[in-house]
């Protein structure tokens, strides 16, 4: 494992955007277990950063920290210059997409999508309008009155995405949102997600096990070490935007995927943790 970060050649554009997330020396301890020890992270506004790493290394924990859902043992995290839990209340609109759709079964799709607005006290008319707009963006406008149970897995994920977009987030945290989907649907949603990001340019932090997905979506990919999580390697993805699914056939794409896989393998291999599940 190489200490710190091993930066890659492809320097991306727009590195002078202001920092949105600054984390240094983060330590997280669950009882006797160190989930994180000295994690450093900087994310600029408008970036799309993917986190890849072995299962159980602490990727979800990173997202929870950024959303201010989890206390840390030590270290500094600033989101727009503030504590994450304060930032999400006062400075930055944050949205979270969880691994499963987490829709409320007793609410219609539209009512689920507008939940963030409802909690923020937005009026009923505006809620309906913006929910429909978000649903249109993910191609679910016709299903506004349906209930989650009546949707397929892919559609539920789309609805969850619409809910996350509904409050026009500035920071969008996505935790393996497409893990449960088949490859075709996943690639389709990848394209849609990237188009949505290009359109609105929120800052994205995306956790995934799928390296091709990470390369396809991101401006930067971070490889995390097994627990305790640290950033083992960093890749700037200079692939031109907008990107379409055909990009996956390009040699440059294959090269980047190969490089990230190698970095991931390199940091997993030697001391294979005793309680580490294989990915």
């Amino acid at each position, binding site marked *: 494992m190489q200490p710190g970060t091993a930066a890659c050649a492809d320097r991306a554009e727009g590195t002078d955007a202001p920092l949105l997330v600054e984390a240094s020396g983060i330590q997280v301890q669950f009882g006797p277990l160190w989930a994180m020890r000295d994690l450093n992270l900087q994310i600029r506004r408008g970036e799309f950063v993917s986190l890849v790493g072995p299962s159980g290394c602490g990727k979800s924990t990173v997202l929870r920290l950024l959303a201010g*859902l989890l206390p840390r043992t030590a270290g500094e995290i600033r989101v727009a210059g503030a504590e994450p839990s304060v930032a999400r209340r006062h400075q930055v609109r944050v949205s979270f997409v*969880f691994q499963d759709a987490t829709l409320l079964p*007793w609410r219609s799709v539209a009512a689920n999508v507008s939940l963030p607005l409802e909690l923020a006290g937005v009026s009923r008319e505006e809620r309906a309008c913006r929910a429909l707009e978000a649903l249109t963006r993910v191609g679910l406008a016709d299903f506004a009155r349906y209930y*989650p149970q009546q949707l397929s897995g892919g559609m539920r994920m789309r609805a969850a995405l619409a809910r996350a977009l509904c409050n026009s987030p500035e920071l969008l945290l996505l935790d393996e949102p497409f893990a449960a989907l088949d490859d075709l649907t996943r690639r389709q949603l990848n394209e849609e997600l990237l188009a949505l990001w290009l359109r609105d340019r929120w800052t994205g932090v995306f956790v995934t096990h799928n390296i091709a997905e990470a390369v396809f979506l991101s401006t930067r990919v971070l490889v995390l070490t097994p627990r305790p999580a640290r950033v083992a390697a960093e890749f700037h993805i200079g692939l031109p935007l907008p990107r379409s699914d055909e990009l996956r056939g390009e040699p440059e794409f294959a090269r980047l995927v190969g490089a990230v896989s190698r970095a991931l393998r390199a940091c997993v291999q030697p001391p294979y943790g005793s309680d580490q599940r294989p990915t």
Partner: protein
Amino acid sequence: MKTVARYAAAVGPPITFLVLTLILWDAAVVLTGVERYLMPRPADVWQAAREHALTLLRAAVLTGSAALCGLCASILLGTIVAFAFSQSRWLRRSMYPYAIFLQTVPIVGIAPLVISWFGTGFASIVVIAAVISLFPVVTNVTTGLLAVDRTLAELFAVYNATRRQTLLKLRLPAAVPYLVAGAKTSCGLSVIGAIVGEMFAGYGAAMPGLGALIAQTHGRLETAYLFAAILASTLLGVLFFSVASLAAGTILARWHVETR
């Protein structure tokens, strides 16, 4: 035609079984020559049921109302108690163990006590029915209010939901299926509670409930009538259960939750 055939296939076997049982029962009584006050013939039961149809019906209505009142009271009270438990860790810690423990107290034991407190009237029966059906509601709803999915709780936290919003829009709606499940259990218990209560209290000879009828007919060795009363109690229980299942199904369908 197909539906008729399917209906016949569903109803045929149990009907056949019933008829066979009745024939065997009748044959056994005739062949063994057992005393009628110990074991009446099916025809005697039918005769008694027809003879006392009006009394049985009145008794069933009375018992049914007592059970229903008790059930409603227990659902209301149980929900309130469960809500209090879910809101206060201190309350839950100190009292919830007893809520589980009290569930095991046999209702037959406390029925006479309730009667000596509330008198031999309708009120006592309602109280007994309510007490016996209270705990399933309390334990189920408490579980439901507390067992909110962690990710859903985080979802509400990310969007800065207040405690009140989380309660109204997440915890309470999420507990509805639990309430339904608890109420379904309580439903059967409330009928049992009412009948047991009446066996001790009755409402006086002028207007007996099913439990009182059972006690009276047993005392007078009117066994055929006793059988009819037991049959009526069973039918009342079935009615309660069917209505509860139907209501539960409707509510859960509206809630769009998979029926367990």
